[in-house]
């Protein structure tokens, strides 16, 4: 025997279904506060090069954008996006112990300096190197010697910042 429908339930007020977004608002507020806290007014002046795992250091000097070089385990490149990078020196030259000065790099640096002079840009004797942390010392030394020979007075290594308050 079928029961008749309840008279009480029949009169229940069925309001519009609403999405409860209170919890979403909580999460969004937290994310917003976190992002505002880490927000930098100056913005990132330099981005780590793709495919390069930079070494870490305790230095605190903020990076500035100047002429840059990228050294990966595949060779020495000019500072550009991963797909547009032009190789300056290959592994064979960098590994060759009889080669002390990198001729392609010297040519590249003199071309850049010449172009800057032609365009009337301020001639900065500063160069940044984004070097993979696994590249051998002999490569670094050759690049430094060549850049120093080309007249660059300061060579900066781009590193990941780590806390110096270690043991």
């Amino acid at each position, binding site marked *: 025997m079928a029961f008749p429908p309840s008279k*009480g339930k029949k009169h*229940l*007020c069925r*309001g519009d279904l*609403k999405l409860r*977004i209170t919890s*979403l*608002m909580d999460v*969004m*507020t937290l*994310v*917003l506060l976190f*992002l*505002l806290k*880490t*927000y*930098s007014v100056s*913005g*990132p002046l*330099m981005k*780590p090069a793709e495919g390069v795992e*930079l*070494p*870490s*250091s*305790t*230095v*605190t*000097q*903020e*990076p*500035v954008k100047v002429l840059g070089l990228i050294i990966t385990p595949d060779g020495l490149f000019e500072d550009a996006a991963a797909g547009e990078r032009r190789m300056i020196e290959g592994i064979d030259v960098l590994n060759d*112990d009889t080669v002390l000065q990198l001729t392609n790099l010297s040519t590249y640096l003199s071309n850049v300096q010449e172009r800057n002079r032609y365009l009337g840009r301020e001639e900065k004797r500063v160069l*940044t190197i984004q*070097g*993979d*942390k*696994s*590249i*051998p*010392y*002999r490569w*670094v*030394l050759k690049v*430094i*010697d060549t*850049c*120093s020979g080309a007249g*660059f*007075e*300061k*060579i*900066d*290594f*781009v*590193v*990941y*910042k780590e806390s*110096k308050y270690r*043991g």
Partner: protein
Amino acid sequence: MAFRPSLKKKRQFEEAEANVTPVMNLMCVLIPMLLTTAKFVDLALLEYNPPVLQETDASVDDNRGEGGVSTELLELRVNVAYDGLEVSIFNVIEGENFTIIPLDYDGAYDFRVFRDRLVEIKERIVGPAISESELLNDETGKLEIVNVYKYTDAEQIRISAEGDVPLQTIIQVLDYSREYKNLDGYFQPLFPSPALGQFQ
């Protein structure tokens, strides 16, 4: 006789909710903007000034300890070999002024011992500054007061490494030789003027 309960109490009141749609709209704009400008990795620059290396004059070595104090050279060198770190002063390769710091049990360079050795050299052999002098800073064009030590190269360290030593190790050597934390907890400069060179 019991009264019949009023039917009014069954009336349901709708909950009043704040209209958060405009706030949500604002958040949907702000969060992507902040996400795109956020710095999730902190980059820094390790400055290196390639020095104009001057060959050690033999006459200076001969006059060590006899002439004026300004002619004395410390000649601190660090060689990063595959099997450890070699620290030497006064350009010797044996004796108490030549220290070999072998790899630790994990096969890594023992940078704590290395730093302790450098601190020992700084505090016991170099000693405190004996005077101050003014030096023109080429970058800022201003006069700066610099410390004068017993040795003219008291702030310099020559670092060399075997060819296949990775860059990370060199950066760590530069870090540990640049400054140290003294007993009071303050960071003090150690040998802040490095010169990278060929392995010897």
